[in-house]
């Protein structure tokens, strides 16, 4: 199982703070985003190409090529705007 988290504008658009998923072997962030986009509707809108999203694996920013492993915490969010 992996834990998925959504933040800020993305959290509101999806109407979800997160969920749990069972990842297939060798799943990358990019592939996971395609899998989520395939749900259609707002999921396609948010995870399809065009929207600028960032990803973190286990609370560290990660490139989309990063492989996800069982037990990981994976977060998706818009570019940060603090400070």
């Amino acid at each position: 199982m992996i834990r998925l988290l959504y933040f800020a504008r993305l959290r509101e658009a999806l109407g979800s703070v997160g969920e749990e998923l069972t990842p297939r072997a060798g799943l990358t962030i990019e592939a996971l985003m395609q899998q989520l986009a395939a749900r259609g509707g707002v999921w396609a809108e948010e995870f399809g190409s065009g929207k600028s999203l960032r990803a973190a694996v286990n609370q560290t920013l990660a490139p989309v090529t990063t492989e996800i492993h069982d037990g990981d915490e994976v977060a998706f969010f818009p570019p940060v705007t603090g400070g």
Partner: protein
Amino acid sequence: MQTEDFDVGAEITQLRQQRPDIGAVAAFVGQVRDLNQGDAIAGMTLEHYPGMTEKSLEAIVQQAKARWDIMDAVVIHRIGELKPLDQIVLVAVAGAHRGEAFHACEFIMDYLKTEAPFWKKEQTAKGERWVDARASDDAARARWHKI
């Protein structure tokens, strides 16, 4: 991260008075503005990613310490509801000399603005809106790769 306000003077005093080999403290205080992109701002909500926030700020401070000869640094960022004139962020860096303290302070702010998981949602007369990331913040961060 904290919802409460912070005392800039007390934080800087605590930072510098630990060690008499500190000669310089460079600091940055961010304040909520009443105007953004041409619209009046009544207030804002700061969302963050608990756990990652602490981890990313700690990593940014460690990078600054590895890169410049500084003695200590403090970073405070508020979350929750804020209104114009409220303090939002403090970064203070203590070093023997001013050049290193200034650079490390600016570096921490530039990285905080582009890597620390905070998001601002503004209240305007037209309703609420999420603040867009600024290209100028990415540019500010990118220049540290060249030095």
